[in-house]
């Protein structure tokens, strides 16, 4: 039965597709393969998600070496949720990328672009699926290295510098993670995360374990761009090719959040991280700083992609804020916002990619009156922007609902007030776009613009519709997130 191999199949398929693309040396074939692989990964992930929806766990031994010794792929309701998210975004972006990449990347590099794209996908899915600490690091590097390449393919020469800075920061982050895993390995003698969790209670109070926690926290927070470790993110998102920005913004940081959750809840256990140590307070303070400072910086950006990149930093603050509550509702909020923010930012960056197709950089002063010539794109940006604000009927509202609920449950009314106040900052930067796009007279350059090609527009609108659909019918996403939160807390106790 092929279904028993599902836990590994979604990683293996893109891994096999990558060398085939290099051998084929043809952009069109590579795109077809990338699309096929993304969609098959999505199918496999959805099947897995359904399989573990009741809270069960699927374990897969690579090479048939039994778990604590061999590498185990371990799918529970947490990473199944993530697998669906990543492969879903990848599938939509794959459709989108054909026209976008054709316009932004030199023709002879197309097949390499798609190779890197599927490698990045394989890495992200691998991080989510694996149950082995070192294997996690390897997949992290696979996804990171390929994303450095993808970012460097941007048209602006600043993309090179952005990629270089991301490479330095990312490598430091990954090295921190591998140091943390190494220290845990030294203390427990195992790399299997579940096994590690079982052996840790005997040595939790020792200094190397605490050092491991510190290294892992800093390393992962670098990768997930928690304020103030976010410096790589705005440039990387702003200068990468549009398809890459959309894909990375929607998935890369989200997978890092998953790694943080996995280590905090499954490996260390909440009693160590939140009860014995003040991690909750630290995360809370940094999250609030991210929400307010990054949003404020976003307001003053002239480059629209940079604006939304800073907004990403702020939104990541919401996710970590949810984690810092260390409650079922807080975790549900964090996980559901993972999904919701991925949809929103994916939609936004994909739509902006349609504008960038002709304009290159998207600065406010260049897009006055955009709504006249690109009404569908502009309206999509507005809808996704409303989701960023958290207007009811969009996914952003669902996230905000659970986040505020978690704050009130924790008895922190002031926090609830801060959460809603910070979303008002989003009103300001979203409305900057509205006023520029709708109320200015189109300039000469703008009036020559056309709507993006149908395939790009359709893919973007799939995400926009998703923003609204999952905002109105959130039972699937909230249900999945709640199950994931229960799984995380259940293991921790």
């Amino acid at each position, binding site marked *: 039965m092929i279904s028993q191999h599902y836990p590994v199949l979604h990683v293996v398929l893109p891994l096999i597709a990558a060398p085939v693309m290099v051998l084929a040396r043809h952009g069109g074939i590579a795109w077809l393969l990338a699309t096929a692989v993304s969609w098959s990964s999505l199918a496999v992930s959805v099947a897995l998600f359904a399989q573990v929806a009741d809270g069960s766990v699927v374990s897969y031994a690579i090479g048939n070496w039994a778990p604590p010794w061999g590498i185990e792929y371990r799918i529970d309701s947490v990473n199944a949720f993530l697998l669906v998210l990543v492969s879903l975004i990848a599938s939509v972006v794959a459709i989108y990328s054909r026209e976008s990449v054709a316009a932004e990347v030199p023709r002879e590099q197309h097949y390499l672009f798609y190779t890197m794209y599927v490698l990045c996908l394989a890495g992200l899915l691998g991080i989510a699926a694996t149950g082995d600490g070192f294997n996690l690091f390897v997949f992290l590097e696979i996804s990171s290295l390929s994303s450095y390449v993808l970012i460097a393919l941007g048209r602006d020469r600043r993309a090179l510098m952005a990629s270089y800075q991301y490479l330095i920061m990312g490598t430091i982050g990954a090295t921190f993670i591998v140091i943390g895993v190494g220290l845990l390995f030294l203390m427990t003698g195992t790399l299997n995360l579940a096994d590690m969790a079982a052996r840790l209670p005997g040595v939790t109070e020792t200094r190397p374990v605490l050092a491991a926690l510190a290294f892992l926290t800093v390393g992962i927070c670098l990768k997930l761009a928690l304020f103030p470790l976010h410096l790589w993110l705005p440039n990387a998102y702003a200068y990468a090719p549009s398809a890459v920005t959309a894909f990375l913004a929607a998935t890369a940081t989200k997978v890092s959040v998953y790694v943080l959750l996995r280590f905090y809840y499954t490996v260390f256990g909440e009693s160590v991280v939140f009860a014995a140590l003040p991690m909750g307070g630290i995360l809370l303070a940094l999250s609030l700083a991210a929400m307010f400072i990054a949003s404020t910086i976003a307001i003053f950006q002239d480059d629209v992609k940079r604006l939304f990149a800073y907004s990403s930093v702020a939104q990541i603050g919401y996710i970590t804020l949810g984690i810092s509550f260390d409650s079922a509702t807080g975790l549900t909020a964090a996980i559901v916002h993972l999904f919701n923010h991925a949809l929103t930012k994916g939609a936004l960056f994909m739509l902006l990619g349609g504008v960038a197709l002709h304009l290159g950089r998207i600065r406010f002063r260049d897009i006055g009156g955009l709504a006249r010539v690109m009404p569908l794109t502009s309206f999509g940006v507005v809808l996704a922007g*409303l989701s960023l*604000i*958290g*207007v*009811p*009927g969009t996914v952003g509202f*669902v996230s*905000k*609902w659970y986040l*505020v*609920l978690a704050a*009130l*449950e924790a008895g922190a*009314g002031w926090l*609830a*007030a801060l959460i*809603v*106040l910070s*979303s*008002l900052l989003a*009103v300001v930067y979203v*409305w900057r776009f509205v*006023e520029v796009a*709708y*109320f200015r007279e189109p300039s000469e350059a703008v009036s020559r613009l056309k709507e993006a090609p149908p395939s790009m527009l359709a893919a973007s609108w799939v995400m926009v519709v998703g923003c609204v659909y999952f*905002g*109105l*019918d*959130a*039972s699937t996403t*909230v*249900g999945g997130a*709640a199950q994931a939160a229960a799984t995380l807390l259940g293991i921790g106790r």
Partner: protein
Amino acid sequence: MSPAETLLAALAVPIAGAGLIAAAHRVPNLREGITLATAVTLFALVASLLPQVAAGDRPAITLFEVMPGIALRLVVEPLGMLFAVIASGLWIVNSLYSIGYMRGNKEAHQTRFYVCFAGALAAAIGVAFAGNLFTLFLFYEALSLITYPLVTHHGTPEAMRAGRVYLGILIGTSIALFLVAIIWTWQLTGTMEFRPGGILGGDIPNATVGLLLALYVFGIGKAAVMPVHRWLPAAMVAPTPVSALLHAVAVVKAGVFSVLKIVVYVFGVDAIAGLTSVDWLPFMAGFTIIAASIVALRADNLKRRLAYSTVSQLSYVVLAAALLTPLSIIGAALHIATHALGKITLFFAAGAIYTAAHKTEVSQLDGIGWRMPWTMGAFAVGALSLIGVPPAAGFVSKWFIISGAIDAGHMTAVAVLVASTLLNAAYFLPIVYRAFFVAPPDDGHHAHGEAPLAMVVALVLTAAGTVALFFLIDWPLALARQLASG
């Protein structure tokens, strides 16, 4: 159609209408025809629900579950029924008026105007029939957003500034306060349904109730209780039909309607009647009534004067709700209806004056009554209704509110109501006096007659309605009594 289907259709018709209007953008006559047809259909649907609701039925439909335990749910109850009938009925008249106004002033972007208008009505109907707090909030926010393009219709820097104030205050208060209040309610009670007798009753501490009430009252910025009233004067940059239907009827009434509904069905009149923590609200509302009236008195711009009058009149409803007696609740419900008719007449008149004579200031209106007798006659009727002179409908609602205040023994409220009546007279009657009894200035710029026929017909209709409602007060009164008796 079953009542539930009718309910759904009432929401779907204006949305479908908006789509059709957009599709017909090349043929103005067809476009306006669709607007009128949509308005009439909507009114017919809403009115068809009236007998059942009056008989005590509560048609309901749950569309789907949004989040676990939180559904998108529509329920018709007496207050919502009243609001929906008023809003949809006046939309017909307003559409007629819009056609005259938009063509008479050669406005741009007319299709966008009609589409957003239909969307705003859909949102207003959603607010009226909201079956729980979530649904209410959803349509409340939708109403803010869909009216934004109407406020900024002219696209001038001035309109954009006004749009910022409009949206900033409405979205800001609703997200920062209203949403928090809703989630807090949900966290305390585990439900968001509107229930007769309230859902917060029982063991909620006094201080919490007071804080929640403050979050709701100031969070619902559309109710324009000071200091969150600034958006309403700002919204006056919009074309007059927008000011007339939305910023005298649909949007502002959605605000006070929500406040009233939340006081009755979430807090429960009896449950909070004895609590000390809610005592501040009558004073806040009373202050708004007086302060806004004084601003209105000093405003020379006609629309601005009307806007501040609206701010003041809205707080009548809030004050009445805050008095927490059955009579005052009846008065609050009736005032939503009577003020709507009166104020839309006044705005229609203001728009007609602008279209025919291009005059916007009160001081320019000397002697205009003889050139535009129908318009200024209607204006006088509307003004009398707002002052509370029988046989205009405004008298009835004011009567009930004052009775409620006396009933509650709240002498401050009685004093406020009396003082405000005098102020109303002070800022409306001079306009009527100028129009009819002051000789026009001899500057040669007054060679004009009445506004286009469609506008005159519309404003005469609403003026007649204002008087007619006085004699037909039984049906809204029956609904209001149902509300007050729970």
